[in-house]
């Protein structure tokens, strides 16, 4: 499937941490022709086994988290406004006047309240999440009949094309990673492999990598690659802290990762002429790899990151070519495993 079309199915789907089923199902639907997948209601994970799974072979786990940042409803006022708490690292600079989806008994639309400039003395301070309300245009009674405390809320922004092969939308962190896994499985279709390939579309990464912990335990892989987004340079950033958009896979090197796997990916990229860049970290990675590496008796793990601008905003930007190139790298690497 065309990479942008995949993103158009994955990114708009609802998947705030703890309520990942809709997003997971969107991914499983696309994958269904390549193997068997299922959603686990206990953990919120979706696990997909590539066709031809064989117990005598070693297993490589490819992980990408399916959840996205958002909010949880904590209170409903008598006049129908919602108070919320953040789920994951919300960028408070993006809150005011944003459109949201509330996942109540039915999905409803809302906007985050803002005080109009005519009445605002201080428009230099970013509001706390505890200062905002969500307006769904409903009376208190209507709101309370559709929405319950604990319901999740996501930002809204379907993916759109920018110039070239760039795309902007919400939840590209980490539906882009899920897209990489889907493209990898597509590229490996009907290829005889020396290993089993299992995908973990993990839940609750944004709230503490819960899904990766339980998922890696259940799958017991022999090695793993965690695919997530990472910082792409943009104006105002420090170049030393970022990768570059459109320059290919950011292959992780870190004391907590398997250097053997990092080196193997790098040499695979070199051999095949696939673009890559380094992402050097000095300890934990802040990704699901942190959980997978220490699952059970330990798992050799590496991170591969998709460069992304404006992470944790509704206008995250990625490059479709990066997704395609990273999928190519993973498919080549897996194809070479014995």
């Amino acid at each position, binding site marked *: 499937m065309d990479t942008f079309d995949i993103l158009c199915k994955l990114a708009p789907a609802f998947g705030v941490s703890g309520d990942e089923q809709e997003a997971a199902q969107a991914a499983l639907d696309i994958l269904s022709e390549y193997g068997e997948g299922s959603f686990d209601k206990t953990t919120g994970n979706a696990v997909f086994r590539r066709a031809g799974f064989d117990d005598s072979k070693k297993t490589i786990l490819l992980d990408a988290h399916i959840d996205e940042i958002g909010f949880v409803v904590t209170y409903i006022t008598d*006049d129908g*406004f919602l108070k919320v708490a953040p789920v994951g*690292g919300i*960028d*408070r*600079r*993006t809150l*005011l*006047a*944003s*459109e949201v989806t509330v996942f109540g008994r039915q999905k*409803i*639309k*809302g*906007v*985050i*309240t*803002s*005080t*109009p*400039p*005519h*009445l*605002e003395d201080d*428009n*230099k*301070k*970013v509001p706390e999440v505890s*200062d905002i*309300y969500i*307006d*769904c*245009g*409903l*009376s208190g009674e*209507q709101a309370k009949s559709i929405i319950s405390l604990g319901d999740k809320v996501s930002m*809204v*922004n379907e993916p*759109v*094309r*920018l*110039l*070239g092969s*760039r795309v*902007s939308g919400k939840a590209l962190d980490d539906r882009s990673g899920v897209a990489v896994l889907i493209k990898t499985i597509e590229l490996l279709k009907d290829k005889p492999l020396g290993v089993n390939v299992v995908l973990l579309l993990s839940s609750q990464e944004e709230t503490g990598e819960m899904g990766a912990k339980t998922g890696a335990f259940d799958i017991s892989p022999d090695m793993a690659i965690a695919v997530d987004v990472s*910082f792409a340079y*943009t*104006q*105002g*950033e420090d170049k030393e*802290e970022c990768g570059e958009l*459109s320059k290919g896979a950011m292959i992780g090197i870190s004391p907590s990762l398997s250097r053997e796997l990092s080196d193997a990916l790098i040499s695979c990229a070199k051999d095949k002429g696939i673009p890559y860049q380094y992402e050097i970290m000095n300890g934990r990675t802040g990704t699901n790899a942190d959980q997978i590496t220490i699952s059970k008796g330990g798992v050799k793990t590496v991170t591969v990151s998709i460069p992304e*601008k*404006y*992470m*944790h*905003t*509704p*206008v995250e*930007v990625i490059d479709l070519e990066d997704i395609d190139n990273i999928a190519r790298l993973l498919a080549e690497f897996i194809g070479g495993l014995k």
Partner: protein
Amino acid sequence: MNMFKELQTLCNLNGISGDEKNVRDYIISQIEGKCEYNVDPLGNIIALCMGEKTPDKKLMISAHMDEVGFIVTYITDKGLIKFAPVGGIDPRVVFGKRVKVGEKGVYGVVGGKVLHHLESDEKQKAVPFDKLYIDIGADTKEQAEEYVSLGDSVCFDNSFITMGDKLKSKAIDDRAGCAVMLDMIRHGVEYDTYFTFVVQEEIGLRGSTAAAYTVDPDYAIVLEATTAADIPASEDDKRVCELDKGAVVSFMDRHTMYDKALYSLAFEIGKEKGIPVQTKTMVAGGNDAGAIHKSRGGVKTCAISVPCRYLHSPSCVISKSDLQSVRALAGELSKRIFQL
């Protein structure tokens, strides 16, 4: 045509102050053949709708076509677009929003340094306009210049949605007024009436200044969207006006002391006809009445507004019932004004 459907059409058109052509073209396409009109040097539409009666006084009903937005001021070597606000926009509603740039309407996003790399004091501060930029996906100035030129207009990428009995969109200020006037023109008027669809309200009531001079009315009714701050964060006395409480008729705002007789008449009509009418509980905001009421030797002026939450943001919210109240009150007042 259904007034709400037409409001959607109008709100989806992009027309910041000084670049109202899309809105003007649509309005002309709708009034053609229903009234005489001309377009003045500033781009105002001045239309005369003939009624059954020709009164000895002149009434001008006015709404503005322009909306708040941005103008492209600079393109960086890296292809990022710098911009300035056109009209009063809180910079905090801009960061992280999607916009459409220039005549080609290319998508752009307003971004900046990522949250994870902000110093703790930066996290508390809104990003001011001079630090914001639009990213259209270009890497170089040359690439950006294929799609964008200095002076291009920028609008919020709109999503017009229904939320219960409320409507949410950009540009409700003042396409709501335009939609009401188009509905009045379609239904016909009892007395000859001037309808002016004016430009450049958001940068200082400039179109209405010229239009009021040209029309030289005795009475004016301004149809607008006004700030409703009926949100939990504001105290009762700071709410200005509230949704679902009807058309807003104010006694005073930051530009105008409204005509007392028209103010009273509006409330009388409301009572008689069962049209909900409310006033503003704060002296806040302002609209084209500020220019019209002091045109030439003075014009008796009234403003009828739809209460609107989150004005000047991409997510203005109004109630359908209030827009109907504005329509009903404007219709009645435009007749009764001649019996004063």
